[in-house]
Structures are given as C-alpha cells and as structure tokens.
C-alpha cells in the first residue's frame, strides 16, 4: 500500500494546530487573544480545504473569515470591551460540567458509530483510500460555475437579495439607534 507521507504529515499538522488553537480560543483570558486564535484556526482550515482539492473555497474562506469577520469582531471588541476581562472568563456553573459530559458522550457515540460501521464494511479501503483525481485541473472551476449559475441559480439570486436586505437592515437599525440617541 502506498502511504503518502507528505499528505499525512500535512494533515496531522494542520489538524493539530486547528484543535490546539480552537481550545486556546475558548480558554483565553482576553477576548482579543481568543479572536486571534480563531483567525489562526480559520486560516488553517483553509489549508485543509486545499488538501481536499477545494482551492477556490479556501481562498474565499481566507478572504471572508480571516479578513472580513475579524474586522467586524475587532470593531465590536473595540467599542464594547471592559477593562476587567477577568470577570468574563469562563463560567463554572453546572452547565459547564453537564455540557462537557454531553459533549464527551456525543463524541464517544459518534466514534463508536463510525467504528462499528467501519468494522461492518468489508471494503474499507474504498472509504479510506486517496481521493480520486480530477479529470482536468479546471474541472473544479467548471463545476463551481455550473453549480452557481444552473443548479443553484435560485439560491444565488436569493442570497444576493438576502445580502441586500441585511445591509439595508443594519443601516436602518443604526439610523433608529441614532435617532433614539438624540
């Protein structure tokens, strides 16, 4: 059997970084640190997308999640952070422990599910094999364009209307807020 070591290494490296920084993001003391860790996570998921052959998605992910979303967040943090970040650390209420337990159960359940289906399926190699090769290197772009404009045409148009509505809505809300501030 062939082992693509490079791919393996890259995958495990990226996965480790993702998990580590995600954990850091939720356990950080200061919000800005957690935001930056989140940015790192998004960046490395873009790397995972690359591994999977979705170049375009990776770039879009970087453009939006690494650049646009942090800007929004930083604006929000900038205007609303209070000095004492210690107060808003993690809660130690019962939901902490219960959700930890529940998450653990979920994790184990899903692993068990997958493991049993793995043991059932005789042809495991089919699922753990390398991904298939594209026909030509433009195929991805072809498919995406085709998807956007023929399969998901309606979704595309509706989504643009949605974006329009969002923009209008946010500006209206700000106008109302300004008027009530006066």
């Amino acid at each position: 059997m062939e082992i693509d070591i490079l791919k393996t290494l890259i995958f495990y490296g990226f996965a480790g970084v993702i998990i580590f920084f995600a954990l850091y993001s939720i356990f950080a003391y200061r919000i800005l640190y957690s935001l930056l860790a989140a940015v790192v996570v998004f960046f490395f998921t873009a790397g995972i997308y690359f591994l999977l052959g979705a170049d375009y998605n990776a770039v879009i992910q970087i453009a939006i999640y690494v650049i646009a979303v942090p800007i929004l967040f930083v604006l929000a943090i900038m205007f609303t952070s209070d000095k004492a970040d210690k107060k808003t650390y993690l809660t130690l209420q019962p939901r902490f422990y219960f959700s930890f337990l529940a998450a653990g159960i979920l994790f184990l359940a899903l692993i068990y599910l997958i493991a049993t289906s793995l043991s059932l399926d005789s042809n495991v190699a089919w699922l753990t094999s390398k991904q298939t090769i594209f026909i030509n290197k433009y195929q991805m772009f072809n498919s995406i364009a085709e998807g956007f404009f023929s399969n998901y045409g309606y979704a595309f148009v509706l989504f643009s209307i949605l974006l329009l509505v969002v923009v209008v809505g946010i500006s209206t809300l700000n106008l109302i807020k300004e008027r009530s501030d006066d």
Partner: protein
Amino acid sequence: MEFFIQNIHTVVLFPLWVFMLIIIGRFFNVIQSKKMTTILTLISTLYGLIFAIGAFLFIIRTPDYIFENSYSFLRIQDYVLNFGVYVDNLSVIMLLVVTTISFIVQLYSSNYMKDDKSFSRFFGYLNLFNFSMLGLVLSSNLFQTYVFWELVGVSSYLLIGFWYKKPSAQAASKKAFIMNRIGDCGLLAGTIVISYFMYQYSSLTNLATIPFVNINDIANYLYAYTTDFVFVIICILLLLGAFAKSAQFPLHTWLADAMEGPTPVSALIHSATMVAAGVYLVARLYPIFVLSDFVMHFIAIIGLITALICGYFAITQNDFKRILAYSTNSQLGLMFLALGAGAYAGGLFHLVVHAYLKSMLFLCSGIVIHSLLEQQDVRFMGGLRKHLPVTAICYLIGCVSISGLLFSGFFSKEMILGSLIEQKHYVYAVGFLLAAIMTVFYMFRSYFLVFEGKFKGENAPHKPSFVLNFSISVLAVFSIFIGFLVNHSFEKFVEIGGNTTQTNIFNPAFISISVSLMGLLLAWIFYNTKIKPIKIPILYQLSYNRFYIDNFYNFIAERIYYIICRVCYFVDKYFVDGVVKLSAFGVRGTSWVFSKMQTGNFQSYLAYSLIFLAFIFAGLMFAYTIIITWGLIGSY
C-alpha cells in the same frame, strides 16, 4: 273521590315546595313576613288534610283497595328501583293522623313561637318534617321508606337542636341523630339482605326492591329461602331501625333528652308522628315478622321492658316535659308489646289514640311553661287550675284517657288487653297491667302537682291566647270521640289477611279499671292531700337516675369509642392525607425543577440542547448496534 287518591303525591310535594320557598326566601331576604310563612304552611297542611279525608272516605267504601303508582328511577339491568305512592288502609289512617296533628301543632306554634327570632326557620323545618313524614307514610317500597326515614331523622335533628346556641340542645340533637343512625344501619342492612335474597333466589326480580304491594309474597319467599337463624337475624336488623326510631329499650335514651327542643316539636315529632314511624314500619313488615315466633316474642319482650322501665323512670322525674317524654316512651313500649303479641289492631288503635292524646298533653304543658315564663320544674308549679282553666280541663281529659279510665284510651287499652288475654299471653297481660298502674300514677302525679294545690308564684301567670286554647280543645274533642267512632270497625279496617276476630273488650275491663283506680287512689293520697309521698331511697335513686343507662352510654362513648376515633383520625391525617399531600408535593416538586430550568440564560438552553442531542445519539447508537447484532445473528 278517586281524584284524591290519584293525586295523593301532591300532598307530599306541597310541603316540600313551601320548605324550599321559605329557605330560599330567607336566603335572598325575600320572604320575611311571618304571616306569609304561617299561611303557606297551614294551607299546605290543610291541603293534605283534605286529601287525606277524601282518600279515607273513598277507601272506606271500597274494601281491600290498594293503589300503587311507581316510577322507576334507577335501572341496573333488571334491578329496578321505584319511587311512588302506595295507598291502602294503613297508609290512609296514618295520613289522617299525621295531617291533623300537623295542622293543629302548626296552628299552635304560629302563636307559641311568635316571639322567637327564628320563626321562619322553625316553620321551614316544620315543613321539611311534614314532607318527610308524609313521604314515609305513602312510600311504596322499603328503599323509599329508608330514604324518608333518614329525612325524618334529619328533621328531628334540626328541630331538636333548634335553639342551637344552647350546648344542651346541641348535645341532645346529636344524641338523637346518632342513635337514629344506629337504627338506620340495621334497617338498611336488613333491606339489602332481603333484596339480595329476592334478587338471587326468586325469579321475580320485581320483588327485589321490596314493594309493599307484594309484601305477603316477599315474606313467604324469604321464609322459604333462609334458614331460621338467618331469618331471625334479618328481622332483628329491621327491628333495630324501628327500635331506634321509636326509642325502645337499648336505644331509648335520646327521647328524654329530645325535650330540649321547643314544645311544638315535642308535640309533633316526639309524641305523635316520628316515633310512630317505628310502629308503622313494624306494621308494614308485619307479614315478615309474623312467620317467626321468636321474632314476635322478641318484639313483645323489648316493648314490655321499655314500657316498664320508662314508666318506672317517669315516676320520679321533676321536669314537666321529661315526665311526658317518658310517658310517651312507655306507651310506645306498650304498642310494640301489642304488635308483638299479635294484637295488631289493638296496637295500631293505640297508636292513633295516643298520638292525639300525647300531642294534646304536650301542647298543654307548653301553655303552662309559657305562662310561668319558661319554668319547667314541676316542684315550682301548682294551683294552676284557677288561672288556666281550659288547659286544666284538657290535661285532665288527657290523663283520664291515657290511664284507660274513660274516653278513647279506655277503648284502646281494652282492645290490647282483650287480645292479649284471648291469645293467652298472660305474662304480657300482667306486664301490661303493671305498666298501666305506673301510667296512672305518674300522669296523675303530674296533674296534681301542676294544677292542684297552692299557687307558688308571685304574680298571676298570663293567660294563653285564643289560638292556643283552641288547638288543645280541638285535640281534646278528638281524643274523646275517637274511641267511640272507631270501635270494631277499626279491627276490620286494618286487619291483614282477613283475620277479623272481634275482641270482647268488656270482660277484662273490670280488671283494668280496678287496677287503674288503685293507681289513681295512690296518686291522690300522695299528691293531693297533706301526706308526704313515700321515698324508698334505693328505688328512688335508680328511678331518678334512669338506671344510670345514660351515664353508661356516656362512658362508652367517651372512653372507648373516643380512642377508636383518635386512631382513625391519626390514620386519616397522616396516611390518607399523606398520600394526597405526596402527590401534590410531587407535582410541586416537578414544577420547581422545571422553573429552575428557566434561567433566562441562553447558554444553559444551549446546554440543554446539547444534552438532549447526546441522549438522542446515544439512543440511536444503541438501537443501531442492536439492529446490527440482530441482523448479523439473523444472517447466520
């Protein structure tokens, strides 16, 4: 004439309507006028009286006429409970008695109670009692009798405890009601057992509700289906009801205490009608009791015992109404004695006569008590003959009559005595004579103490009004002439089974009259002359304290029964209530848990959803593995 019998159910419903009117009127403050209450009540009773007379005239002309009209109101497959009227000779006689005495007592109490502030309530209760008694007399089967039996007991409770602010009145009414309930248990048990036998064993399931139309058949069937012992037990159960209602030996203590109620109540209920309900029940169920000698002797012996001991008690009592109460008790005992010894007509005749006599005596006592400003002790009365002449004359007539010397009492007593001697129950006859002597003695004692002698008060007692005098005079007239009007025809009228033996009443007359005159002489000597009455200490104590039976019952109720009640209360409070409280606590606890879950914090809601999701997945996984393992096993 037949119209009166066809619509006789209206006689029962009219007083009920007046009762509802009075009660609702008081509740909504609509009817407060005394005149309206009185007029309505009197009209309802007069209506009943007219119907009773009409029915009576009709029944006299057509012998062996029985009218029965029932509506079935409860149907369980083929067990059908009826509600209706049953009119035959006995019903009509009782109807006449009840309506006339009711009418006169209501007339009397419209004047007697006019200063009482709960006048309307009194008349409401009187109407309720009227309704119950008329329903009892006209009921068509034993279950309906039981319903009205209870109602009569309730009215008695309400009327005895009429002045409910007095603790002695509360206690007396409770005692009366509880003793009546003991009897009711027996009556209900007996009824149900008879009904069971009729339903299970005989193919005629319409007998299961014991209608009085078929009482002869029921008696024969019952005697055939049961062993002797069971039959006797059933009869004793039924008799328990009659004994409690008519205050016979073990359950007689409530009647004397029932004098706490106003005097018209005593006149109506505890002399003439309610206590006669027991005798009426025995008369109705006579075909059942006749079939067993033991039961007949049982009735007679209990009656005799009651007559003797109550007469014994009456000799030494000092409260005017109590003397009359024990006299009633004693006469009821004589009625039971007569019924038990086979003198059916005699017993019933004595019932009718005694009803008029006793109510008249009670009404006279009411007048006396009223004029002496609520003085009830006989030792402080005397010499009232000059001040209350009408009362004195009526009372004298009553005493003479009840002693069996003249007038109607003579005829009734002779009828009983004659039947007793004819049927060769000599022991009963001797007991009867003994009771007669005591009757004469204490009645005349009371007469001499109250009406003769010197007047012991300061001012003259105020004269009774015309209405009061009128009522007792009417009753006096009745009591004089009833004896003459109904003589042999009474026996023919009420005899069941065509057993028309005419008792010769003049042979034993000499014995009884001489015995009574002896008693009269004794009373005259002791109470009308200067000779002091002899007081034998032990006998006096026993009589005055009524054999300590009251104290004995009190002891049992307080010590023994009270402990049982405490145990039951404890069980009820902690176990039964505990279960209820536990369920309420469970509900409250669940709601507390759920309200704690509403934290208002969206993160906790997220946590709930995560937990839920985890459970769902775990469940799915579990189901998945089961399906897979079974699928694997199945595939092999």
